């Protein structure tokens, strides 16, 4: 119970910092909407279902990278030494995964709404867009779990955005492959129950990433 409380407080702390400097989250939203708008402009008003599916995952991918490569107040040396003595690393990484999950789910919602508004719901003639949205959100959770650890390694190495991309992009390919397959199955008119195993697999991967972060992060914690 105490652990849950601590994690809750850490997440609350992160959100409070985020709200205090408003440009951060606003910048991410602008990036997402602008990316969607670029897709709308480059494809023309009538977009093919397969391209719809491909574009939304690519936009989500870059929005996620943008979100995690934002500088993070906890990574400054002064803040780290305070946290080192007050918080356990396991609580901290779980809090960060939860925070990223919230942030990326919000990004997923923004991107999905942007696609619905600008590019339309053409692909969903025989399937529900809500099922697709579920896939988007689960992908956001998987990305959050993976990128939390990658971001921790990259920020400790001082490599910044380029290092996050180099370390993160290859690892993201399996997630995006599963999501793309799920999306194209759904769009091609397959029943949700027949393609839900992709989501199950995504959830398993997410569990694996969370476990890895939980086990490995304490080694990054101490200096």
């Amino acid at each position, binding site marked *: 119970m105490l652990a849950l409380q601590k994690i809750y407080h850490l997440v609350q702390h992160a959100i409070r910092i985020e709200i205090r400097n408003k440009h951060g989250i606003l910048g991410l939203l602008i990036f997402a909407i602008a990316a969607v708008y670029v897709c709308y402009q480059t494809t023309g008003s009538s977009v093919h279902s397969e391209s719809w599916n491909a574009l939304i995952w690519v936009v989500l991918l870059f929005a996620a990278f943008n979100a995690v490569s934002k500088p993070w107040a906890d990574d400054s040396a002064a803040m780290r030494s305070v946290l080192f003595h007050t918080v356990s690393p396991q609580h901290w990484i779980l809090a960060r995964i939860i925070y990223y999950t919230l942030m990326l789910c919000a990004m997923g919602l923004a991107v999905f709404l942007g696609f619905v508004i600008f590019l339309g719901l053409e692909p969903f003639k025989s399937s529900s867009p809500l099922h697709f949205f579920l896939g988007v959100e689960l992908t956001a959770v998987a990305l959050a779990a993976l990128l939390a650890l990658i971001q921790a390694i990259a920020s400790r*190495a001082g490599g910044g955005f380029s290092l996050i991309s180099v370390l993160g992009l*290859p690892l993201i390919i399996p997630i995006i492959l599963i999501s793309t397959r799920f999306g194209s199955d759904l769009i091609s008119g397959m029943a949700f129950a027949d393609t839900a195993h992709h989501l199950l697999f995504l959830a398993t991967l997410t569990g694996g990433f969370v476990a*890895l972060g939980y086990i490995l992060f304490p*080694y990054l914690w101490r200096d």
Partner: protein
Amino acid sequence: MIHRSWKIIGLALLVYVAAMSFIVPLGPGLIDFQRVTTTERLDASPEQDAPFYELIGIGTHWNALNEEQSGQLKCILKHESQLAELPVVSITDDQHAIVKVDLPDTLPSKSWDVFVIHPIDGTLLLENGLFLEDQTIEENYSWTNPSIEQLESTLTFHFPFQPRIFESIRNLMWHVPMWFTMFVLMGIGFVASIKQLSAQNKTFQFDDQALASVQTGIFFGALGLLTGSLWARYTWGAWWVDDPQLNGALITVMVYAGYLVLRASVQNRRQRAQLSAVYNLFAFTILVILLMVLPRFTESLHPGKGGNPGFNTYDLDSTLRWVFYPAVLGWILWGVWMYRLRLQFNRLDEKLKRILH
């Protein structure tokens, strides 16, 4: 001498494998079963209206029989449990024979597997070799099966003939051991990284080991991709295909390349050892997921996974085993040797840099 013996064994095994993989001949097989028109066959008498087909084999010995053995070449059609023997009209040479396809008008299926049975070559199969268009199809139609005994090949020591793979089966001794060696090397790196983390940075020797093993492992991974790409070009017709196994292999090599980039971007020795050890544990987990777990759940063109024609259950016959297992062992020994050399090289290189600066 004793502590060097494993290196000598590794080298000897690889010399044996290199020689064997090019010397051992490919076994016999069937390439084609195609219709010949009467103009090509001058001796065809006009009253024979049943079509003639030409059997084309590769590495076969149809003409090598003496007088009393001729007539032992049998051509058989098969569909599920239905068998039909076709009369062999003439044997042109070792690889070509003419067969008369004299079948009733009603048949249980349009497409038939073609078997050839021969005392020397054994039983050869051409899957879906015959496709009939004119006959009426009746699923339940059946006829009396002729009694046919399957023969084992009397040829000694040859690689099995595989449709579409043909001579490129020799690549098995080069492509597959590369990945085995990479697994072993990355496993050494994994263990070294665990030791590094539990040593709490009191020593850096495990970090050196992890670096050397990953460097050598990436080299073998790159060779595996290269030999695989050549093989894909030959059997699938493209240098790269979209396939779970191939994606996994490429991603794994890229993830490990990220390990080298990560090391390069950290200057502090302690921090570099710690960060790269954590990342290496992560990378090895990804390797296991991508190369061993994920391909088993998805369909793949790649042999040994999912539904796959042509190379089912590896088709490791005894001849292949005689060369393949030594190849795996030899490459692993050589990989470990290379890893140790790399480790020494890295240490000397660092020492040299310290002296120079």
